[in-house]
């Protein structure tokens, strides 16, 4: 209450250039008389707890007067508040009546100030609430699939380390064994046999030669003799058919003889 009373006009609140019309605009922006009062209280530029209700009442009444000059209709809320504040002001300024009923003027002013402060606090609280970490804005919940929503791939596979190792060992051995067989089955292909025969026959002087004697020279390992003999025999027949070789066998199971056909003197 010790503040110097503020000028009744609101030059500092409403820019002079805006003129009186600005009040109309302003009042439309307020959410009722308490909102307006809080805005006015802020122009006192002091802590709400040290608010001068008397000064505030003056500010409010002047403001309403200014608005009414340009605008006849004003929401009843504002006018009721104006009436009440005018009443409170008169109670505060006049000496108390000798027999007072109910609260004193100071008590009323006090209660009123508390009300304003409470609204201010609620607003701050609302701001704090709105600036919290909010679900759906700052944080998001798990989206749980609907009951009838099928979750893809809901299959779990199982296998043990033993399964894994035995599968590996089994297949590696399987293929390893077949690989080894392949190596021992190293055969003389027909083409191979023929190439060797051609080289041998070409180098020979033209006499009859035993087929198996050629082969034994080349093939020390007994298990390969069969394949070598078979392929060489086939190659021999091929070469005989082509007229490159002569072949002779003196009896069944007797050794096979062969010689290059180029040696013509026996025929002549």
């Amino acid at each position, binding site marked *: 209450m010790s503040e110097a009373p503020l000028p009744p006009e609101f030059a500092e609140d409403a820019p002079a250039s805006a003129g009186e019309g600005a009040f109309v605009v302003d009042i439309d922006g307020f959410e009722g008389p308490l909102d307006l009062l809080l805005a006015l209280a802020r122009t006192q530029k002091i802590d709400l707890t040290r608010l001068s209700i008397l000064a505030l009442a003056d500010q409010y009444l002047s403001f309403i007067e200014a608005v009414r000059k340009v605008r006849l209709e004003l929401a009843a809320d504002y006018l009721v508040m104006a009436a009440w504040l005018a009443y409170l002001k008169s109670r505060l300024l006049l000496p108390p009546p000798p027999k007072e009923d*109910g609260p004193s003027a100071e008590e009323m002013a006090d209660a009123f100030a508390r009300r304003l402060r409470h609204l201010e606090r609620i607003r701050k609280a609302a701001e704090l609430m709105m600036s919290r970490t909010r679900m759906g804005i700052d944080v998001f919940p798990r989206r749980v699939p609907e009951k009838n929503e099928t979750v893809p791939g809901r299959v779990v596979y199982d296998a043990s380390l033993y399964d894994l190792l035995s599968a590996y060992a089994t297949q590696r051995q399987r293929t390893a064994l077949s690989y080894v067989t392949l190596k021992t089955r190293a055969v003389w292909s027909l083409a191979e046999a023929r190439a060797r025969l051609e080289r041998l026959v070409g180098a020979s002087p033209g006499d009859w030669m035993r087929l198996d004697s050629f082969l034994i020279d080349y093939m020390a390992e007994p298990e390969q003799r069969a394949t070598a003999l078979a392929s060489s025999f086939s190659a021999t027949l091929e070469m005989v058919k082509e007229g490159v070789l002569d072949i002779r066998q003196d009896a069944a199971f007797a050794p096979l003889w062969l010689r290059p056909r180029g040696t013509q003197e026996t025929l002549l």
Partner: protein
Amino acid sequence: MNRVAPRIDLFDARPLDEREAALVRDLRVVEALLFGSSLPIDAATIAKHLPKDTDILALMDTLTADYARRGVNVAKVAGGWMLRTAPDLAEMAGEAAPEVRKLSRAATEVLAIVAYHQPVTRAEIEDIRGVSTSKGTLDVLMETGWVRLRGRRRAPGRPVTYGTTSAFLIHFGLDAVHDLPGIEEMKGAGLIDPRVPSGFAIPLPSDDERLREDEEPLEPELLDLILTPEPEPEEGGEEQ
């Protein structure tokens, strides 16, 4: 500032350590429970799935700490725990989420009043704001799912009382209404003091499902004082 040793992976229990194995087993159960719900799960529900005498709070503290650095966190809200994305990842995590409706200033204020003064009647809301509240504002708040009708005040006209829901707590990340920001300050300021002529005899807001027994009629003398500057028709409105 450097740590001496990095933290050990909580879930890497030594197979022979029974205590560790039990912890991992319990944590896994809780993780699965929280993960399976988009709403908070309370301690009683969690306890049902764990061995008797499990210290749920300690377990949840451990899990919360473990998730604190992750992209998904454990939050204690609405009396339970839930998993939610980390706040710093909002932009990315919210891409697919439906947009939350922005509330008007009036609706925000009314919501705060409901939160801090519940159970509260419409007349009380208007009293605090000093202005009549359009029915639309309360309708919007009901629509958000954050505000609900609680019951009726044992008072003339038996006005409807409003309160907040668990969806409200979840949305604002509150464990309970007494965790509302600034509530201590409000208590300290004596603004919820029964002597204050706002008529709120109840010191703390409560969203307890059970109706309050002590919802008393307002004192007529106080009412007179308060309502002098108030728009008259509000009790009438409530009575209809």
